[in-house]
């Protein structure tokens, strides 16, 4: 690695912060859906919750 190539991250602007906040909220919602939702968000009853039961346990999330 004699020539380290670096990339420039975009300048932090209000627009970037708003976009980043929006995507972060979506990511947290997705994580909530997997880790904690019991049908209120997914609207599938307990189906998604039960489907991902083992994943929750093995990802270390308190389950029941």
């Amino acid at each position, binding site marked *: 690695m004699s*020539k*380290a*190539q*670096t*990339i*420039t*991250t*975009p*300048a*932090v*602007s209000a*627009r*970037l*912060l708003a*976009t*980043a906040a929006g*995507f*972060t909220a*979506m*990511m*947290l919602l*997705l*994580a909530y*859906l*997997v*880790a*904690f939702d019991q049908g209120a968000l997914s609207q599938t*009853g*307990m*189906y998604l919750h*039960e*489907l*991902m*039961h*083992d*994943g*929750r*346990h*093995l*990802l*270390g*999330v*308190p*389950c*029941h």
Partner: protein
Amino acid sequence: MPLSQATPGYIQLLLRGLLAGLFAGLLAGGFAYLAGEPHVEAAIAIEEAAAPAGETAEEPLVDRDIQRAVGLPLATGLIGLALGGILATAYTLLRRHLRTGSDTHAALGLAAAGYLGIVLIPFLKYPPNPPAVGDPDTINQRTAAYLAVLVLGLVAVWAATLATRTQTHQWRRAAAGTAGFLIVVTIAYTLLPAFHEVPDDFPATLLWDFRIASLGAQTVLWTILGITFAALLNRLATRTGTPQTATVTTA
């Protein structure tokens, strides 16, 4: 780089984080299937044996085989996707403040910070439990405490970074960082409630094996996420050329 490309730059980074996260999550799911599922099965067998005699097992909403083969990789894949997106966002916003000229060091450093704050610190305070362990009546308190220790874990990493930067000599930097980290972790561990809900007759070896498998799956996730994200960043740098080299070095 023209300013008009600022936001596309974030999206490009975000897509790479999501891809790395999905890949890492699926690999972690494979690991969890092989290393963790036998222990989940054993714990469920204990749970069912302990059920009161009159209580017949209710028809499960989702078949066990589907939970294992579909639900598990789905859960780890989606969590990986979310964590990858958050890592890429953190990279985009924090890269200028990371005092390294290497994108790889920056990406791996952020992934290591996430692993420490989101996995290791919560794991040591609230180790994961298999089915048959845990009192359903305390699930809300345990969930809140888990989220609190997760946030405080990230605060501890942040405190360590800030403390490191107050010093110049290397050994003083290490000492200050360690002190900042330990102060936050000690306060968090002391103030957060303890939950002792393992049944007396639950096999200790099964509990240990399950917890190690869970830690292993999360370690696979974060390791692969960090390395894959770093690899994709390097490809991006190679492809876009180097005219902007060294514009981001130290802040």
